[in-house]
């Protein structure tokens, strides 16, 4: 299909090459670095958001509690905290990816370098 090897193919086909890279320790490390951050973080923000929605549905008295003797209540602060957490996670991820993911990905990509593709996903 997309990686059809021409007659003059190098000894190692692109498919074997990718399998070899995928099984390398370096790539396993990259996968672990990525999944180790994004999976727990996804679970965390989803639960944090779910808590907010559930409280909005079932804990109205608590959400209506006024704070600081003003019209600002728990619901508003909780909602604003969802903004804060979203901005914070985005910033943390960007910092993490710059430091831990990009350098490794760049290195592996350079190693693969010579494997070129006429077509990736067919199209």
């Amino acid at each position, binding site marked *: 299909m997309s990686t059809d090897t021409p007659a003059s193919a190098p000894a190692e086909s692109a498919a074997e090459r990718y399998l070899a890279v995928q099984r390398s320790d370096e790539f396993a490390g990259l996968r672990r670095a990525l999944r180790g951050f994004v999976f727990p973080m996804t679970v965390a923000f989803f639960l944090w958001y779910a808590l907010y929605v559930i409280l909005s549905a079932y804990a109205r008295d608590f*959400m209506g509690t006024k704070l600081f003797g003003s019209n600002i209540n728990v619901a508003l602060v909780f909602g604003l905290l*969802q903004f804060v957490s979203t901005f914070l996670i*985005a910033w943390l991820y960007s910092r993490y990816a710059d430091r831990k993911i990009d350098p490794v990905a760049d290195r592996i990509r350079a190693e693969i370098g010579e494997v070129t593709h006429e077509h990736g996903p067919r199209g």
Partner: protein
Amino acid sequence: MNTVLAAEAGSTTARNLTITLFLVFVAVTLAITIWASRQTKTATDFYAGGRSFSGFQNGMAIGGDYMSAASFLGIAGIIALYGYDGFLYSIGFLVAWLVALLLVAELLRNSGRYTMADVLAFRMRQRPVRTAAAVSTITVSIFYLLAQMVGAGALVALLLGIKPGTTFLGMDADTAKVATIIMVGALMIIYVTVGGMKGTTYVQIVKAFLLMGGALVMTLLVLAKYKFNLSSLLGDAAASSGKGSAFLEPGLRYGVEVAGNSTQTFYNKIDLLSLGIALVLGTAGLPHILIRFYTVPTAKAARKSVLWAIGIIGTFYLLTLALGFGAAALVGGKAITAQDKAGNTAAPQLAEALGIDFLGGNLGGATMLAIIAAVAFATILAVVAGLTLASSSSLAHDFYANVLKKGQASERQEVTVARVSALVIGAVSIVLSIFAQSLNVAFLVALAFAVAASGNLPAILYSLFWKRFNTSGAVWAIYGGLLAAVFLVFFSPVVSGAPTSMFPDQDWQWFPLSNPGILSIPFGFLCGWIGTVISKERNDEKYAELEVRALTGAGAH
């Protein structure tokens, strides 16, 4: 503080100014589109803007693509009428971007080329998966398009102040609605067929700046009026809503507690949870959002785009909070519902009130109203262009080139078909919108999110992260999630059996929730799993290629 939209004295001025500003926007965007068409030579130019946009530019364009009239006018309106609950909506819309940022954007950018299906079909049999993806892309986009275009038609009569019994350029309100739908449709077809992704992107960037500028100015004026004391703004909004502190708490719009009817209360609350889940999981499955990640050169730039998008979208939703409560306090619920029952004119009415206050008199009010009305039209145009592009790309690249022509179409043929597709999809949307214009189709945006979350998202996540996933699984996930969401909504109160239904006089409703997500999303994931395990197909080599390419960017287009 009872301002009537387009009060007689200012109405002609406002109307002329709105039309002038709108024409300026159209002229500028058409000029950009023609310029972009000269830069559009290859398929990559047409589908992906030559992948030449920076992270910042794409972030703004994502904002322009995403902040629809439903966000700007809809959320401000819900807050103005129901208080806190509008905020719930915007939080879902924002948090959703974390799914796109953490799980989808970069991997999709690295492994795909032009459409969502490029990633889904990467290691699968092309034809069934691409057909399913095209069906889902077009369904989601058409739902979304209909909601936007019908909304545009309804707005124009209101914003231009065409009341029942009066005419404008010889058109009564109903004719003006149809004319608006046709005009919006024609413009989006031109943007897409002529300008391709490049033209569409610039239209969205321009719109993002206009929208942010307009919202920012209005917010500052509202806050200035309350001496930057948020509490007194909230207090005033609550007082003038007549609902007191309940206005500042969840529960007036979503998850409503019906006294003496515990069953309905139970369903209402589940419905709120269901809406929340669909909002947060839908964004990363919206095809018109996903294809935006292909317009930047690298995965890192895709990440930067999402960061900018989160920044601009988050800021915008914070502003709508002030706009909504500002409209509640300064315009008042009664004056808003007198114009539009759904509250869609709250933001323009607030603009008018602020103009009267700060710029002086009816002329000031008319000016502000005209500016915000023109921004609202610009908003609609940018969003519908993005939707048309996404669906025509999928029709041409997925269905025509890879299903019909089995990958043998030339680039030129493909782009020609994409242009024709945009014309056809645009024309179909115009016709459907004209038929649907008297129906309440606002629910279609939430339905688009539910379909995206139930069908597309499971297929995308399984594709990227599950080695065993295969053709059968992808096809099951997409059709299963899509059909479940549409099926449940068809039998829900938003379609029939209630005064606010699409067909209020019919009743075939038995499913109690307006939002199907809480059932259809797990169902979509389940279908993807079942479809996968009942098929023997498994291609570890192709998964190795997909995973390595997705994570490292090797061989990326």
